[in-house]
Every structure is written in C-alpha cells, then in structure tokens.
C-alpha cells in the first residue's frame, strides 16, 4: 500500500464526497442526453445480478404460496360452489366455442385466409422491480439465451404488460405500460377508434389522441392496434376507467404491481425494431429507447 502524508490523505478524504457528488451529477446529465450510454453496463450488471436476485426472490414466492394456501383452505367451500356453477356455464361455452371453431375453419377455407404467423412464447419470472417512484420496469430471469429480443411484447394471461427494452444474456428489462416513457398505439375495441396509450407512472395510463373522444365510454375495452408494427393487433390492454375534462384513463387488465410469471412473446415482428441509434438522430426528449419512434409516429391526427 502506498504511504500518503497525513495532510494529503486528509485532503483526499475531504474532497471525495464533493467529487463523487459532481461525478454522479455529470453521469445523470450524460445519461439523460445519451440514453444508450450506460446500456452495456446495465445489461452487464443485470446478467451478473440475475442469479442472485433470482435466488433472493424465491423465498418470497414460497411465503406467498404458503399464505395463498392457508387463504385457500379458509374459503374452500364457497370457492367450490362458485367453481361448480362456473363449470356448468363454461361447459355450455365450450360447446359454443367448438361449434364456432369448426365453422371458422370452414369459412377460412372458403375465403383462403392467410393464417397468422406462428407465435413463440418464453415464460419468465419477475426477479426485481423498480423499487422507486420514478420508473416502472421489472427485470425477468430470461434473456437472449432463451431467445428473447428487444421490442418483444410481454403479456400475462390477462393482457399486455409491456415490452422488452434491454435484453442481456440471462436477464431482460420490461418497460411496463404505466412507465412515463411508454407509448403504445391502441384502439377502442368495436369502434376501431385509434389512440395512444401513454404511461405517466400512475397505475392508470392516459389515453391520448383519441380519434373521437365523445364516443368514449367507461368500460370500453382497449386493445393494441398493431400500428407501427411493434405489437400485433388486438392484444387486450385494459378498460377505459375515466373520461372527462381531465382526459381519459385506462385501467390495465394486468395487475402490474403483482407480476409473478410473464410471457415474452415473439410474434415475428421484433425484427422491425432498430438497434439503439445515436442521440443526434433521435428527435424529441421522450425517447427512452429507439423503439419509441416506431410506436409513436402512428399518432392519428385529431
């Protein structure tokens, strides 16, 4: 170890804190100007930390499962009755669905419909969330090794969760639809009115650039429009939960604060997403990832 004079050592000690504060400030400004600057570092650290976070989040999952089980025992009688009734109803629906499937197949055959491209799913577990009030992202324990790629849609059985913004080899980051930087082209189901779903870090994202706002009703289903070629059309997103002068808002179908397992879906569309481009090329301040441009330009004119 190098021996330093006491004065020099005291000097270094005194200036460390201000120097590091300045350095963090500088990094903040630099990172804000060029969003891609720290991306390699980010994915690198995520890859390294993923196994540890994976292990650390397991006991939580086990504890939750145990609580769930106890809760399940308490309500077992009512649940059983409800399920029996539901089962009766669903059996009827099954008959209807089977009939419709056959009919649909016959009609598609008549019309020579081109079938949708094959879809592949990767199931992953959420191992970390954003733990703060200013970003809405989660980390999942699968990455490029499992076939994930930037821009893929992330869903659960209930609906859209978000999309992959950073993909490391073992972990990936999902930008949730509620994040301040999330913009998703959507439409109101049935009416085909286009809109953009814009997150603002609250639980209920806003609905911008609605084609005909007066036609909007609480309870309308919001689905992806497929414009911009990032998400396939008709993925369920949420339900209109507020209309009025403050602007319409959407309640997501997925309980985003309680994500356990999610599906990263490859619809064969993510090839349309460019790799990060240098900041000079990117217009606007909201572009957290280059992919944003592909999602936003589809804003229909009022």
């Amino acid at each position: 170890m190098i021996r330093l004079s006491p004065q020099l050592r005291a000097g270094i000690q005194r200036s460390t804190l201000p120097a590091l504060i300045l350095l963090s400030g500088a990094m903040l400004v630099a990172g804000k100007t060029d969003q891609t600057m720290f991306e390699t570092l980010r994915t690198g650290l995520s890859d390294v930390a993923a196994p540890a976070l994976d292990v650390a989040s397991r006991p939580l999952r086990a504890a939750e499962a145990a609580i769930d089980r106890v809760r399940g025992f308490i309500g077992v009688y009512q649940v059983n009755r409800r399920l029996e009734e539901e089962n009766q109803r669903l059996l009827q629906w099954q008959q209807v669905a089977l009939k419709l499937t056959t009919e649909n197949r016959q009609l598609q055959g008549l019309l020579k419909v081109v079938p949708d491209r094959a879809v592949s799913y990767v199931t992953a577990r959420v191992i970390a969330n954003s733990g703060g009030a200013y970003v809405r992202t989660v980390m999942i324990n699968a990455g490029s090794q499992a076939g994930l790629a930037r821009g893929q849609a992330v869903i659960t059985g209930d609906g859209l969760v978000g999309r992959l913004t950073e993909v490391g080899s073992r972990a990936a980051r999902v930008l949730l639809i509620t994040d301040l930087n999330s913009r998703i082209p959507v439409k109101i189901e049935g009416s085909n009115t286009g809109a953009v779903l814009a997150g603002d870090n609250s639980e209920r994202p806003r609905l911008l650039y609605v084609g005909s706002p007066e036609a909007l009703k609480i309870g309308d289903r919001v689905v992806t429009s497929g414009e911009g070629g990032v998400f396939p059309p008709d993925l369920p997103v949420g339900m209109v939960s507020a209309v009025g002068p403050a602007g319409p808002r959407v309640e997501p179908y997925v309980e985003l604060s309680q994500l356990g397992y999610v599906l990263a879906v490859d619809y064969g569309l993510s090839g349309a997403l460019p790799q990060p481009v240098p900041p000079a090329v990117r217009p606007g301040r909201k572009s957290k990832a280059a992919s944003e441009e592909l999602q936003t330009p589809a804003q229909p004119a009022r």
Partner: protein
Amino acid sequence: MALREFTAPELPRVNSNAARLVPILTTTIAALVAILPLQIPGYAALTPALALMAVYHWTLYRPDLLPSYALFGIGLGEDLLTGSLVGVGALTLLVTRAVVLRSRRHFVGRSFPAVWAGFTLVGGGMMLGLWALHCLLESSLINPRNTIFRMVLTIAVFPAASFLLGSTQRVLIDGPRLMRRR
C-alpha cells in the same frame, strides 16, 4: 462546496474487519430488498426508501465505516438494476451523507424523537428534491401523490429500521469493543 468530513479520530476504532463491513453490507442489503418483487399491490411504486434510512443511520453514528465511495457504488448499482437514470441513486445517497455530516452534531447523542425528526427533515427533503429533479429531467409535472405516500411510509417505517440497525451496531460493532475494554 465546503463539506467537512468527520474522520476516524473522534470515533472509536473498530478492529475487526468483518465488523467494519457491517454498514456497507446493511446498506447494500437495504438497497436490494427494495427491488425484490413483493406481491403487495402498489408496492413497487411505494417501496420505502430503505437505503436512505441506512445511510442516515450510519452517517450519523459511524460515518467512518460508510465512506462516500461505497455510497457511490451502491447508488450506481441500484440505478443500473432498477433501470432508473444512471446517477440518480448515487446522487441521492451522497447528498444525504453530505447533509447529515453537516448537521450531525445536532443529532448525535440525542433522544430517538430528535433523531427521527432529523430523518423526517433529511429523508423527506431528499425525496421531495428527487421528485423535483425528476420533474426537471422529464420536463413535465409528475403527479406528486406517489412521492408523498412513499415519503410518509418511509418516515413511518424509520423507527423499525433504526431499531434493527441500532441493534446490529450494538452487537457487531460496539459490542465486541466494549467487551474487550472491560
């Protein structure tokens, strides 16, 4: 910026290397626990600022064992793992340290309510400052509701965190030394 660092001489020296690592370890654990995906509705948005509590505690009682560069590292790791803007976490923890160092003499040796009041001022101030910084960086007015909830929760949880950290300190850092002295 005139920041005075309180250096080791006024604090009793800790000989055990393991004990010297306790503040850094507990702060790192606090930062990690905050990002674990607990299945509590709204938890991600309202997670109490656990690392902030650890930094306040250790800077107050053992500033020599939680040096600035450790805070920089922990803050940076936090930013990279949570996907926030790089530098925000480090800046928060370092400024907290700077503020606590400057006002340390008002709180050290005081009763717990005074320490808690100090945390309310420093922690609450930091969280409001962070909100203002994000509004500035995103150049839009972010709804302060979550920040306020989070702030109240953080201040409310502080006594428990302070008790845990204080016990850890007594057992692992102060304890062995006192026993040896006897």
